[in-house]
């Protein structure tokens, strides 16, 4: 394992200088054909190293403990052993956790988008005085370690009767995610075509109507990307839910999985089935939105 991961990336680099010389264009001569297969093999080896842990997990999620101790982790299970999945599903009450994760992430992604849009409208289109500082503040807020906020937040939640409440987590993540959203959207709206705004103003549209009828339709694709990002980021969050959600009926999937660790009842199939079932929602979400998502990650980087 260790050697594959460490050495594989080096092979494309060392193999390529030979293959990358002149006349190796697509449809060009085939004389240097061997080198490109080496490079491909290197890149595929890295991909396999990345996939290996997940393949091992999938294999052992449906393998009986007896077979695991006899044939080891790499064997193909001779029959589908579903006790691990059933065991995990019942132990953590998976449907409840699934709903909790979904509910928190969905509310956060929608409200955080709305908040980002309002902020960015004032900053990017309204050109509020001191907007440079406001954007900088939002950017810095994004970098803060959550540990520097958690104890006061934990205390505040208790004082207002929101301890162990999903609403405390929702409020916190709405603000944290919208800090990034504001930063990104403000720079997008900073370059908004002024002609459109002028035309709307001539038509007698007020600021509220301009926001919803002119600005919103144009930035909708960016908002979609933000919404997907917020959803998946909130879904994957660990630290704040770990501290704020203390009972079984409020916890999210990652917390439920982590809290089963070290449990003596957790044999190999249960652990792997737990990991598998817990990653499936994220994986399905990723496959459905893969295109939008890669665009979103890129958009975040360039801005």
């Amino acid at each position: 394992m260790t050697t594959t991961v460490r050495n594989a990336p080096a092979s494309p680099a060392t193999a390529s200088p030979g293959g990358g010389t002149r006349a190796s264009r697509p449809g060009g001569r085939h004389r240097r054909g061997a080198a490109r297969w080496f490079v491909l093999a290197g890149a595929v080896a890295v991909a396999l190293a990345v996939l290996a842990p997940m393949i091992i997990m999938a294999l052992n999620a449906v393998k009986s403990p007896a077979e695991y101790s006899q044939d080891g982790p790499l064997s193909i299970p001779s029959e589908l052993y579903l006790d691990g999945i059933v065991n995990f599903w019942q132990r953590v009450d998976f449907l409840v956790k699934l709903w909790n994760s979904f509910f928190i992430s969905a509310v956060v992604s929608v409200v955080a988008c709305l908040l980002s849009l309002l902020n960015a409208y004032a900053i990017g289109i309204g050109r509020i005085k001191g907007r440079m500082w406001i954007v900088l503040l939002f950017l810095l807020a994004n970098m803060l370690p959550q540990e520097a906020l958690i104890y006061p937040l934990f205390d505040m939640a208790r004082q207002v009767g929101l301890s162990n409440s999903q609403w405390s987590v929702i409020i916190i993540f709405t603000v944290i995610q919208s800090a990034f959203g504001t930063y990104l959207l403000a720079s997008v709206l900073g370059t908004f075509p002024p002609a459109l705004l002028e035309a709307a103003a001539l038509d007698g549209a007020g600021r509220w109507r301009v926001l919803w009828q002119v600005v919103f339709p144009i930035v909708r694709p960016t908002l979609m990307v933000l919404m997907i990002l917020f959803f998946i980021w909130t879904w994957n969050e660990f630290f704040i839910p770990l501290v704020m959600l203390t009972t079984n009926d409020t916890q999210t999937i990652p917390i439920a999985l982590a809290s089963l660790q070290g449990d003596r009842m957790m044999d190999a199939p249960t652990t792997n089935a737990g990991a598998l079932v817990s990653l499936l929602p994220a994986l399905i979400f990723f496959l459905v939105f893969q295109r939008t998502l890669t665009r979103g990650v890129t958009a975040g980087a360039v801005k």
Partner: protein
Amino acid sequence: MSAPTTRARRRRPGWLPYLPYLIPGGVLFVVVIGYPLVTNVYISLFSWRGGLAPLEWIGADNYTELWHDAAFWTSFQNSVAMIVAMVIVPTAVGLVLAAVLFDYLGRRFGGRVASVLRATYYLPQILPVAVAGVLWNWILNAQTGALNEILRGLGVTDPPNWLGDPASALPSVMLVLIWVQIGYPVVIFMAALQRVDPELYEAAELDGAGWWRRFRAITIPQIRPETFVVTLTCTVAALKVFGPIYVLTRGGPESSTLVPSYYSYLNFFDKSRVGYGAAIATVLTVVIIVVAVVILALQARAERREEVAG
């Protein structure tokens, strides 16, 4: 009323009517981030067991104690290891992988091959970090883990206790983090490469420059802005890392994988030393902001130098 043309003539600044749009975000920002951040610094000046226990003012004592606390220094030393695993290795390997996928494999085997490989590298990034941690925790488990089962099958009689031995725990955690992190720079860099003018590569190729020369002379300088962004975001993430440590090792064995965020969590919620935990979190915040400002300043300087040179 708000038309840009009439804005200049009015005495009231044109931005004022937009202020209400900032109010909900502003209020929430102050309540959820501003106030807690300031309160945390305030708490760090007290000895407090948390909850309803009384706060006892001790001034900077928590910070002097930190200065002499070996575990605190270890945690920041381990942060350097986290930066190696989450920034340096993934960025360097990611650059090579992205360039190979984009301008070598992509051109010889078609874009589909490149994008399938890219998606595969990116896969660990979408897993909830706790799930990745639980999976690896099992794989690396000394007795029943997959890795040691495989090693025993290969005839290794006494395979290492990956996460349980102070000598191997940190490298093992680093390996997991490299696995998690590798796809992020690849995706960013491949997108960046699409920006680069293909004629640059063609001209270099006609001049007889090999792949490695083109990589160094064109690819690296052209995507410098993205490299800075990746360095900044990953460095901040490495300094903040919590989930993988919590799930893999809980900072152990013998503090060999302790990181600042986990150390402050430990003081907050395990040792009930809230003031001390707040002091650790405050120091971590300052370190992160300083590092981020330094990286941003370096980026600004590099951009300026480029302008002068160009």
